């Protein structure tokens, strides 16, 4: 594409800065001098994708290899897509503007299920055959990683290789294998066979699934050359692990525009609804000295004035005071703000944060997740009403007048009393504010309650639970609203139709591939954006394929059923999930990993891990 053609393509397009590349930190190489070209495709817009930490890590990781060049591709907004199609121009990568179909690899990150139609749309825009079986020797190898890869079955017909777990070593192994095979002149199939030998790589075309009369999975057969179960890859030592020293810094405004320092992986808490906490086990921390050094280098290289400490539960990082103390030596001097998202209510380091001016406290946000103690015990979110009220009161004393709380409805064993509990708790917080003699004068309090609908996920103790139907969810939302009697409480909730679709795809199997294709063919894309979501088109797609979506979302599964993700091993054992599910149904809690090891199985992946200390 010439500059003039590019200019014409972008004239009339909103936010052309999304597509122009050339950002500080972006990597441009000579394409004749590299052997392997990788197109990292984030299945959402530039603003969303550039906020993601994973792409920054993998971009830097692969570009460090002198024989490889990794470029970025984001889903074009509707106006650019219209232009591309009208002009017959294929989807291109940001750095070189070369067509994505010319690359060796096209890699997608599976961040959330409602991005699946975007994946198909991007493949189509790239002019790459959507179904793997239709791809030829010259087509790129399509790979996918990220959290939803733990159950990639609904995309099994479209993805050549799933990358399970952490990519810092696995991606390099994949690229090196490809380079070797390419030099030896191997065919596509031969390369895939070689790739399947690498730990963490799951090649779905070597596995065949058959179904029984009751429509559940009967068995899975596989080629001799591949293992029955594929285990995820992890990095054992986070201190010596690759971490980027710079990332491309966007020109335009994006969702999260700041430097990010990863502080640990996994989570000790074992909340039963939370997939991430289990997927990233065993818990491994980075040492404060390493984090401090990496964070400082990043801020210097990018020029960002804010750095976020990223993890699943930052207040659980064992050396938080020490880390903050080291960082403050240069953040205060350079006027850089430290952002601490993901703090728990029961060990919220309020006093620590008060002392630190550079720690920006934007809003006060807590996630009690459930309104009654019984319900919190069922989901193993081990916080009490005392913890919640106590933290809010402390915040009010410090001058805060607003608080945001996250809850879920549709949790297993939930009753209307539990739903009402959310309103009662919110009211108690309002009352606590007004009972304080030393509360901020002249201002009222604002308690925002955000209620999402629970979606049972694979690799959690709730993976066998039926999701509430859309009707049940709507009734609970209405009931909750009717229980709220104060103008100081603002309730927001999500359309149950999106939660339902998420529920179907999250625990789906290969029979959903044709459904996703049919939905995309009818024009579905950007399903997570309310302006673009068309549940009626999805309904048509399900009907066309003869699939009942409730089979995946609303059915209670037996422990004996073969699940679509049974061939994947993320460390935590099925027996552990069964035990936890049973305890949930008895309203029993489980201590966190530091209090007592409950034998989840993740330690088998890495004996040095697990914060027993």
């Amino acid at each position, binding site marked *: 594409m010439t500059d003039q053609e590019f200019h014409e393509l972008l004239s009339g397009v909103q936010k*052309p800065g999304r597509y122009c590349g050339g950002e500080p930190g972006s990597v441009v190489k000579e394409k004749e001098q590299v052997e392997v070209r990788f197109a990292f495709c984030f299945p959402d817009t530039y603003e969303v994708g550039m906020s993601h930490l994973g792409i920054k890590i993998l971009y830097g990781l692969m570009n460090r290899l002198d024989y490889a060049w990794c470029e970025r591709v984001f889903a074009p907004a509707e106006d650019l897509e219209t232009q591309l199609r009208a002009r017959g121009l294929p989807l291109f990568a940001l750095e070189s503007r070369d067509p994505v179909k010319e690359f060796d690899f096209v890699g997608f990150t599976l961040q959330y299920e409602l991005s699946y139609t975007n994946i198909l749309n991007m493949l189509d825009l790239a002019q790459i055959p959507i179904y793997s079986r239709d791809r030829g020797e010259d087509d790129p190898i399509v790979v996918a990683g990220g959290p939803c890869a733990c159950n990639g079955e609904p995309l099994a017909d479209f993805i050549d290789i799933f990358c399970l777990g952490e990519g810092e070593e696995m991606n390099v192994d994949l690229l090196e294998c490809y380079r070797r095979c390419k030099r030896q002149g191997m065919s596509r199939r031969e390369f895939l066979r070689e790739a399947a030998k690498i730990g963490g790589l799951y090649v779905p075309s070597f596995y065949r699934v058959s179904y029984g009369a009751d429509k559940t999975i009967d068995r899975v057969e596989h080629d001799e050359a591949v293992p029955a179960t594929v285990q995820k890859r992890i990095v054992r030592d986070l201190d010596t692990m690759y971490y980027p020293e710079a990332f491309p810094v966007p020109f335009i405004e994006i969702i999260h525009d700041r430097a990010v320092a990863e502080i640990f992986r996994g989570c000790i808490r074992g909340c039963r609804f939370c997939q991430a906490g289990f997927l990233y086990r065993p818990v491994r921390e980075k040492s404060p000295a390493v984090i401090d050094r990496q964070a400082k280098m990043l801020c210097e290289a*990018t020029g960002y*004035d804010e750095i976020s400490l990223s993890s699943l539960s930052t207040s659980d990082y064992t050396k938080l005071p020490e880390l903050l103390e080291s960082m403050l030596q240069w953040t205060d001097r350079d006027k850089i703000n430290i952002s601490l998202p993901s703090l728990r209510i029961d060990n919220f380091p309020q006093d620590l944060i008060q002392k630190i001016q550079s720690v920006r406290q934007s809003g006060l946000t807590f996630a009690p997740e459930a309104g009654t103690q019984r319900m919190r015990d069922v989901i193993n979110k081990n916080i009490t009403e005392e913890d919640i009220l106590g933290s809010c009161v402390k915040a009010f004393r410090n001058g805060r007048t607003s608080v945001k709380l996250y809850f879920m409805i549709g949790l297993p064993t939930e009753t209307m009393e539990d739903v009402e509990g959310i309103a009662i708790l919110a009211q108690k917080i309002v009352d606590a504010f007004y009972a304080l003699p030393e509360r901020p004068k002249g201002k009222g309090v604002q308690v925002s309650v955000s209620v999402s609908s629970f979606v049972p996920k694979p690799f959690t103790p709730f993976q066998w639970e039926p999701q509430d139907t859309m009707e049940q969810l709507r009734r609970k939302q209405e009931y909750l609203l009717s229980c709220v009697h104060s103008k100081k409480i603002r309730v927001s909730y999500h359309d149950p139709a999106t939660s339902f679709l998420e529920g179907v795809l999250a625990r789906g199997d290969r029979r959903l591939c044709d459904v996703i294709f049919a939905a995309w063919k009818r024009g579905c894309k950007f399903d997570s954006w309310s302006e673009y979501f068309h549940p009626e088109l999805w309904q048509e797609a399900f009907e066309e394929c003869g699939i009942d979506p409730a089979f995946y979302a609303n059915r209670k599964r037996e422990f004996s059923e073969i699940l679509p993700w049974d061939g994947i091993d993320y460390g935590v054992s099925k027996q552990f999930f069964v035990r936890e599910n049973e305890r949930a149904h008895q309203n029993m809690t489980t201590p966190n990993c530091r209090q007592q090891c409950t034998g989840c199985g993740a330690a088998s992946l890495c004996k040095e891990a697990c914060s027993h200390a």
Partner: protein
Amino acid sequence: MRDVRIWFEKRGETRYISHLDLNRFMLRALRRTRLPIWYTEGYNPHPYLSFALPLSLGFESVCESVDLRILDESCTNEQVLERFSAVMPRGIRVTAVTDPVMKQKEIAMADYLVSFPLREEDTDTVWNFVSGEHIPARKSTKKGEEKQINLKEHLHGVRLEREGENALLSLRLDAGCVVNINPMLLLDAIREQTGIDCSGASVLRKQMLNAEGKEFR
């Protein structure tokens, strides 16, 4: 403490960065240089940065400048140039660092080079229009309304040349904080009055001048 003026070109893909984005970009670039600069006082201190004149999204320029205040007087203009050049992306090239001569508010005019595909046979029509006494155009006012103006009053020089398939229109228009005329207004007027479509036009700002026609330095 002293003021310096950083001169730069904004070309290639960086034409797609809006002025607001450019401001944010400069703030970060400044941090990367690690130069000791003066911060504004008040509740939300930020580096003092003042651009000479905003550039519309999509336009290129070879005459942009931004003023800032260096705290360390021993730091030379050459050193500032070096540090800035090291942290710029490929589309933005720092051409000079000088002591400011004129004040930014003295800017009164700007020269633009506009190129667009134009058929040979349409050249005369366009020339007759842009060199005429009356060039009706519509401009939005600050209140969001539209008013009719005669662009001739704001046009201080015009030349039309051809290069292959394209017309090259050189314009000197009123610019600055009092009256600012966007060259696209002229292109819109051409389309409206003659029917000739100038879409796909590229605009390059070549220099800025004060009311006497002296180059802004």
